[in-house]
């Protein structure tokens, strides 16, 4: 671990001032729960020269908004968010996704902002002894393409071969992000240049030709809150997480589904996949297909096929294509049956 300076700040303004100060080669980083950042610092993957501890900021509230949505402070801990009465009642999808992640101890530490920005679990990214990883060392290549790639992407990846400086087949590992995408959340950020809001669909990015960038957040920007729109899916939603053990494992594939239903007809749908791409994977085609369709096996299967169009697997992860299809169909079926019914199933 590199030596670093530690700053504890007590206001948003102070936080922004410190993050912007001209500092060492690796710059400054905000410290939330530290469950991802500190691990990566110990591994020499992240080497900030300044840590700006934001955990004393008062961004810890979950409050209904004037237009009927919900405003979640960036420092709300994952366990508090999952158990918040508003979230349980109006956004059970989010609660379910959060509770499927990590362990109780980690969720007690992890913050909303930190979870949004948690980095990939790609093995070649987290072990500096591997020479090739474009995300860690831009231009060095991508060892995962010919390596052990069971947890890697099947959609939206950049693959120009293992030696290309643009290749990256990593996935975003978060469960929360998948639910937030299906729910259509907005991320509020603030920097020395002012405030802005980013729809979650534009927040995380595909690797494109710059896999070192996970998101469209600009240097120096602090996440202050996550806003959820008016709840539409409380009655019919489901988060399905498929993993290698019953708990405490990242998703191989996950599916977040929210449906607005009228009888057996789907009026509208929000759907996102986790564990399959560099960002939570949203398929507008699939959502459109579902809108107005009856909740039958046929329309569900069609939506699943549309969501996975163009999927490409690798030596160890090709199973994800079939798994994702079956998982989408299962999650859609459960969501259509109803949030509570699904839990009893």
């Amino acid at each position, binding site marked *: 671990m590199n030596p670093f300076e530690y700053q504890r700040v007590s206001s948003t303004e102070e936080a922004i001032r410190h993050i912007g100060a001209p500092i060492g080669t690796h710059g400054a980083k905000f410290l939330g729960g530290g469950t991802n950042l500190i691990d990566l610092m110990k591994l020499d993957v992240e080497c900030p020269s300044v840590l700006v501890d934001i955990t004393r900021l008062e961004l810890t509230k979950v409050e209904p908004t004037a237009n009927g949505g919900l405003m979640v402070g960036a420092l709300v801990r994952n366990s508090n968010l999952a158990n918040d009465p508003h979230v349980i009642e109006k956004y059970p999808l989010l609660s379910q996704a959060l509770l499927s992640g990590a362990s109780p101890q980690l969720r007690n530490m992890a913050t909303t902002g930190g979870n949004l920005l948690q980095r990939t679990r790609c093995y*070649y990214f987290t072990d500096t002894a*591997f020479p090739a990883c474009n995300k860690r060392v831009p231009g060095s290549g991508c*060892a995962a393409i010919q390596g052990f790639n069971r947890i890697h992407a099947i959609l939206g990846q950049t693959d120009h071969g293992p030696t290309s400086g643009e290749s990256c087949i990593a996935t975003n590992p978060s469960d929360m992000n998948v639910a937030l995408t299906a729910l259509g959340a907005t991320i509020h950020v603030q920097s020395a240049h002012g405030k802005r809001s980013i729809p979650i669909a534009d927040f995380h990015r595909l690797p494109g030709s710059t896999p070192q960038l996970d998101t469209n957040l600009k240097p120096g920007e602090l996440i202050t809150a996550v806003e959820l729109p008016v709840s539409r899916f409380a009655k019919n939603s489901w988060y399905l997480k*498929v993993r290698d*053990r*019953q*708990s405490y494992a990242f998703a191989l594939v996950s599916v977040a589904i929210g449906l607005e239903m009228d009888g057996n007809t789907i009026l509208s749908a929000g759907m996102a996949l986790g564990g399959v791409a560099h960002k939570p994977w949203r398929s507008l085609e699939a959502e459109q297909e579902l809108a107005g369709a009856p909740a039958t096996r046929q329309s569900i299967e069609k939506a699943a096929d549309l969501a996975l169009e163009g999927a490409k697997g690798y030596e160890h992860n090709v199973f994800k294509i*079939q*798994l994702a299809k079956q998982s989408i169909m299962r999650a859609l079926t459960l969501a259509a049956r109803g949030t509570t019914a699904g839990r009893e199933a």
Partner: protein
Amino acid sequence: MPITALNPGQQKASGIASDGAKPAPKQLAMRYDARAKVTGTAKYAGEFRAPTDAVYAFVVQSTIPSGSIASIDQAAATKSSGVLAVITPFNAPKLPPANPQPPARRHITVLQEREIFYNGQPVAVVVARSLPEAIQAASLLRITYRQTAAKLRFRERLGEARPPKFPGREPAAQTRGDLAAAMSKGTVRVEQTYTTPYQHHNPMEPHATLAWWEGGKLNVYDSTQYIAGDCMTIARTLGIPTDNVHLECPYTGGGFGCKGSTWSHVILAAMAAKVVGKPVKLTLERPQMWGPVGGRPTTVQQIKLAATQDGKITGVQHDVIVHTSLMEDFLEPSADQTRMLYASEACATSHKMVDMNLGVATFMRAPGESTGTAALETAMDELALALKMDPVQLRLTNYAEKDPGSDKPWSSKHLRECYEQAGERFGWSKRNPQPASMREGNKLIGWGMATATYPANRSAAQALVRILTNGHAFVGCGSQDLGTGTYTIMAQTAGDTLGIDPRLVEAKLGDSTLPKAPASGGSQSAASICPAISAAAMQAKLKVAQLAINDPESPLHGAIVADISASDGRLFLSSSPGSSDSYADILSRNGGKPVEALGSTEPGEDSTAMSTHSFGAVFAEVAVDAETYMVEVRRIVATYDIGTLINDTTGINQLEGGIVWGVGFALHEESHLDETYGRYVNANLAEYHVPVNADIGKLDVTVLNIPDIKFNPLGARGIGEIGITGTAAAVGNAIFHATGKRIRNFPITLDKLMNA
């Protein structure tokens, strides 16, 4: 988790002259070290302090799998904050040439060579004031290598397999009977290949060493499973007399085999302490558990079974190929149990190995039987299916009344009762043999079973027992407690033999100055040290009895030894229990000094004239999701024949721990090797999956508790490893029964089920 132990837990007085079958020991109900563990006062090697402040060492590892070190530029590291020394193969103190004698027949790399045998090999040690400073300086070392082609693709190299260079405990290859003839008699055949992955032990406490020198004497706190062996290896490797090494390890935070040998870091800590002239603390980081401290070899096992229509097995062939390192041969003897588990006309087994650029492999819980039963017991399930026979019935049909491999009688075997008892508790008779015949909504339900087995081992051991003037007692033995319960059974055995409440017995272990005990490995500790403790306690008791007999003031004056028994801290006459005298009174009237005795025992006739094994039957119920193929183990029911259960709490816990590991073996555990770079990619506890609580359903573990007094006077065989055996196959067989899909490559992950 409801747990049942069938132990009468009788409490009887122990007669001095009694021999033969002993009554069940009076148990220490609470673990001896429970309070120390839960209050945090139990100290582990890395938590001790030396007489003067220790400095910290960090092991730097190679990042290539094969070649040699060309140069190490240590300028920046040496100048880095807090650094006291940077030790490399270019400046390390020269050690005497490696001595290949046991127990040191490990090849460890301690900066004496520049060759690189595997990715992760120690190539330097940085010593600094603090651990963060040492780690930081380590990252500043500039190491260049001359890389050569590495052997990393095991499956592609099977053709190069060769016999091991050294014979193991058993010969690597063995044939009994006329295999070809026997095979041709069988009309129903199974011929399949099974594989098991690379695995790495990860006890909660990673390896840790604190070392400091006082002149030519070395003091060490080391997390070990084998105090005496560790001392000897350290001494030989450093070229000093064994008596010059004082080693302590009062608690070992789990071992599972990886702490049974002395690895590089122990020697490097001692070397660093010499170089800087200060105490040095060296603890391994979690990722360093993958490579330099052993692991379970990957195996490919080909099994052929032939049987007649009535289910009688005529021929068995089990051929095993494992990987080994380029430094040293270590054999995972996966076919050993195949030689003894079932009766057959002929049986041929063999083991071969493939050289790989990987760290040395080693013992890992039930080396051989864990991987071997995973394959053999799956093959048995396949045979039962082919025969349309109940899997339990198939095993009963081929029940071995004596050891078919050695042709010797069993010291004691009650496997039949295990099948019966576990089967009944499970409800096996209600099983529909048809695969994929049970369904609950989206879940496919399956029931499977397997046989468990592990040899009963025993070694020479010594122990000291002292009766104190206040009527309490002390027992000392240079053994180890891995969390397994050694303290508990030491206090219990001494107390039981002395007739003193075990709660009044102080137990001490984990110190090289104590009487010597064998390694805590091979499930032998209890079976080895308890007889020694018992013998020592018997002697001590006799000495006090003699004092009483000679003491005119004692109610026991003039009694004959054979008539004297002990209970509740008192000696009394069996013929007239009213005549009694307490240890405390006898000692205070007779010099007021404690009385002690040394006990020394070794395996007797048992090791040669009989075959000594533990057995068990494991039944599993799984629920497999019909679309995602996630597997849930709902319950495991197992009954074991392990001789006397010495202590319910510690014993049943050992069996359960083994079963949990068996579930992990079946479903989760695998070190994934990158076959280009030779590094394990999931070298951390987030990504190296072992079962979590949610993966373990109900456990119902029982033991028959039938003493095996031919094996040792206590009748107890070891229980540390048998739990893992059979379990993986039972779970796999249940998955087959649920889905009709047979996965022969462990672990059985959902992708394999989906593609099958």
